[in-house]
C-alpha cells in the first residue's frame, strides 16, 4: 500500500458516521493528495455516500478527524466547507428542477470560493449543449445533461477537491465515457477528485489509488494495478 503525497489535501482519520444509533462507518482512514484521483468502491449500503456527506458536514454525527489543506474542518458548517474549496456532486444530481440551468450554475458560483477563477464561459466550453439550454428549467433536461449541470455547478465553486457520488448512475455508456474524459481534464487542472462509484472497472481505470468499502469498513486499499480482479471482487462483496 502506498502512502499519499507528503501533505495530503484531504486526510481523514478514524472517521465514524452515526445516524441516531446506527453506525454507518467504523473508524476509517482515507487520504487524497493534491491533484490526485482517488476512487471509493463498494456495494449498496457500504457507506460511500455517508463518507462524502460526512466530509461536507451533512450527517447527524461523526467521530474522528477530517483535515482539509491542513485545517480541521470537522466542526465547520457546510457553507464554510464549500467556501474553503470542497464541492460535492451529490448522488442523484439534486438540481433545483424549477430553476433554469443558468440559475442552478449561478448558485454554484455563489456558494463557492471567493475570487474564483472559474467562469460560466468555461463551463459552457466544457459542456457546449448547456449553452443552448441555459434558459430552460433544469428539470426538463435529459439525465446526462442534468449530470453536466450538477458537475458544472460544483466546478463553479472553484473547488480544490471534487467529491463525485455515482455520477455515471443511469447514464448511457457513451455519456459516461464523455463525463470520465471530462473528469480527467478537470483533474489535470490540479483539482483533486474523490470518486464514488459502484462500477468498479471504470472508476479504477482512472484512479491512482482506491479504497474498497464493505459494511462501513475499508476492506481493501491500494493502487488498482496491485490487485487482480478476483481479489477486488472478493473484498467488494465480502465473500
Amino acid at each position, binding site marked *: 500500500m502506498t502512502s499519499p503525497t507528503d501533505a495530503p489535501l484531504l486526510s481523514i482519520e478514524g472517521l465514524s458516521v452515526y445516524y441516531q444509533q446506527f453506525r454507518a462507518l467504523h473508524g476509517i482512514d482515507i487520504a487524497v493528495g493534491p491533484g490526485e484521483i482517488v476512487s471509493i468502491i463498494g456495494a449498496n449500503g457500504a457507506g460511500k455516500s455517508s463518507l462524502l456527506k460526512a466530509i461536507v458536514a451533512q450527517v447527524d454525527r461523526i467521530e474522528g478527524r477530517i483535515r482539509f489543506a491542513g485545517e480541521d474542518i470537522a466542526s465547520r458548517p*457546510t457553507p464554510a466547507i464549500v467556501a474553503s474549496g470542497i464541492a460535492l456532486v*451529490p448522488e442523484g444530481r439534486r438540481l433545483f428542477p424549477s430553476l433554469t440551468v443558468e440559475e442552478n450554475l449561478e448558485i454554484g458560483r455563489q456558494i463557492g470560493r471567493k475570487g474564483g477563477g472559474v467562469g460560466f464561459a468555461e463551463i459552457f466550453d466544457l459542456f457546449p449543449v448547456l449553452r443552448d439550454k441555459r434558459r430552460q428549467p433544469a428539470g426538463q433536461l435529459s439525465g446526462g445533461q442534468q449530470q453536466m449541470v450538477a458537475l458544472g455547478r460544483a466546478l463553479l465553486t472553484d473547488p480544490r477537491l471534487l467529491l463525485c457520488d455515482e455520477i455515471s448512475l443511469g447514464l448511457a455508456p457513451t455519456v459516461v465515457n464523455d463525463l470520465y474524459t471530462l473528469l480527467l481534464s478537470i483533474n489535470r487542472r490540479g483539482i483533486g477528485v474523490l470518486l464514488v462509484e459502484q462500477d468498479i472497472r471504470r472508476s479504477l481505470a482512472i484512479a491512482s489509488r482506491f479504497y474498497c468499502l464493505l459494511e462501513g469498513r475499508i476492506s481493501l486499499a491500494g493502487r488498482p494495478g496491485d490487485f487482480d480482479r478476483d481479489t477486488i471482487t472478493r473484498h467488494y462483496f465480502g465473500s
Partner: protein
Amino acid sequence: MIATYANLIIQGILLGGLYAIFALGLSLSVGVMRFVNIAHGDFIVLVSFLLLTVATALHINVLLALLLVIPLTFAGGYLLQRVLLQRVIGQSVLLPLLVTFGLSIIVQNGLLEGFGADTHTLSAGSLDTSSLHIGSFYVGVLPVATFVLAVALVLGFDWLLYRSRIGANIRAVADDVAAADLIGLSSVRIYAIAMGIVGVTVAIAACFMGLRMNFDATSGPSRLLVAFEVVVLGGLGSLRGTLLGGIILGIAQTLGGQIDGAWQVLAGHLVFLVIFLLRPQGLLPRY
C-alpha cells in the same frame, strides 16, 4: 345606472389593491415556503398598532413611521423564522399551523391587554380625504395610491423572486431543501431572509389597512380570511395572480355591498367559492 356600476367597479378594483397587499406576504409564505401562517392577519394588526404608537409618540406622519418600522418588521420576520418557525417547518403540515395559531391567540390577547378593545384608524393627514376628479368619477387619492402601490409591489416582488439572486435562492430552497443544504446553500438562512421579506409586506399592509379601515385587537382573523381567499383565487405561488385575486374579491364586495350591507362580505365569499369550485388551482397558478 351604468355610471353607478362603473363607479362601483372602479371602487372595487381599488379596494382589490389593498387586498392584494394584505395577501402578498401570505402568498410568499404559502406559495414559496409552503406553510400557512395563521397569524398573518394578526401580525398585520400588530404592526398597525406599532405604526400608531410610533407616529403618535414621535409626532410624525404615519407614512414616515412606516419607513422607520419596515426595518423592524424585516428583523422581526427574520428572527421569528430563525428562532421559532424553523423548528416546526418541514416535519409535518400540522405543526406550523398549530404554532402560528398559538401565535395568533398570543398577539390578539397581547393587543387587548395593551390597547384595549377600542377600534382605531391611522391617519396620513390630508391624504385621507383628498380626492381626484377623473371624467365623471370622483376617486379618493388614497385608494388610487394604494392600488398603484399594490401594482408596484407585485411587480417588484415578482422581480425579486424571479430575477434576483436571493429570489433564485428562495426558489431553490422551495424546490429541494435537503439538496440546498447538501451543496452548501443554507436553507435556514434563506428561509429567514424570506420571512424577513414577508415582514416588509406586513408593514406595508398594516399601514394601508389602517388608513382605509378600522382595526381593533381582534381584527386579525378577518384580515387573514381575505388574504387567504385572495391567495387561493389567484393561484399558489403567483404574485400576479394575487393581484388579480384581490381585484376580483374587491369588485365582488363593492357590488355585493350595493345590494345590502350584509351582502358585502357574503358576496366576496360566494365569488370565492364559485371560482374555487370551477378552478381549484387558482386563476394564474404557478405550481
